[in-house]
């Protein structure tokens, strides 16, 4: 009996090790879970991109489910998800607000003219101060915010059609009903 254990025990430990190492391979180290999920959206008050004399704050957006998309004209991968955002806006699925991160105003407006503007409004975070409150570390990032102003999800990196269908849209539908 002990003889069997002498072989089974190391084999078992080895199997557990292989499992964890293998699992580690499939994790994406760039996707850092955000501590902001299920927390109130950080308050901000920033000038609108298209009307810098007007300010938009998080409290203005309470009472609806909305998306906050962090983007910049310098951000190459933002172009990947942009057609999907345009599609969401066209079908009036959910209002999208843009956080224009560390960008120049004329570059940002030029970019929207070129690739389409899915945003109800974009706000300009020129020095990146508000992005720090949102724990942003790479554009694009997308936050799903519920009617009470609670962040329900953070998507890091470009939204794919798959993640939109599987995760984001069902969550939005659920939040709209609640």
């Amino acid at each position, binding site marked *: 009996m002990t003889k069997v254990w002498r072989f089974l025990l190391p084999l078992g430990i080895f199997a557990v090790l292989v499992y964890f190492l293998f699992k580690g391979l499939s994790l994406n180290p*760039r996707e*850092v879970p955000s501590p902001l999920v299920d927390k109130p959206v950080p308050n901000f008050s920033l000038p609108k991109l298209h009307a810098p004399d007007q300010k938009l704050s998080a409290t203005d957006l309470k009472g609806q489910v909305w998306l906050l998309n962090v983007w910049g004209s310098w951000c190459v991968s933002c172009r990947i998800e942009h057609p999907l955002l345009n599609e969401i806006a066209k079908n009036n699925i959910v209002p999208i607000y843009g956080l224009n991160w560390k960008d120049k105003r004329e570059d940002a407006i030029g970019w929207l003219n070129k690739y389409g503007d899915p945003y109800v409004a974009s706000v300009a975070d020129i020095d990146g101060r508000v992005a720090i409150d949102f724990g942003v570390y790479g554009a694009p990032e997308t936050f799903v915010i519920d009617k009470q102003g609670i962040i329900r999800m953070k998507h890091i990196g470009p939204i794919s059609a798959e993640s939109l269908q599987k995760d984001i849209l069902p969550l939005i539908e659920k939040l709209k009903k609640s």
Partner: protein
Amino acid sequence: MIAVLRIFALCAAMLAGIAFAQAPSQPLQPISPELEQRLKILETELRCLVCQNQTLADSPAGLADDLRREIRGLALAGKNNAEIKEFLQTRYGDFILYRPPVKSSTWLLWVGPFALLVVGGVVFLLIVRRRSQTPMQPEAPNSTTSARALLDQD
């Protein structure tokens, strides 16, 4: 090696993108050398989330610049290191700390090596004890002579 180079190239490309878009940064407020020293040490304990294997002190990323400026502002406002760390932790999570906090999801990380050491020690002691209990085999009286005989055969 290729993977390392690729990650490096990716980081460089990202930095280039960020640097390109960066608004001219405001000049940093002057601070005392003691505070400068304190912040330098603090920044080596914080991770830059853009190039994940660099500390905030070392990283040339635009975000690291912003965070260093933020930390400086907090320190000038009289916040201590623990408060500054907490500020960053509530925004970026534990990952920003190079030294993970002790909590239910990390206790294995902290206790694991010591637990393994204890298990190893116990196994070692058991083996040593068993060995010392098994009586030494007395040398067969004729073993030397038979060996000699074998050697002398040719």
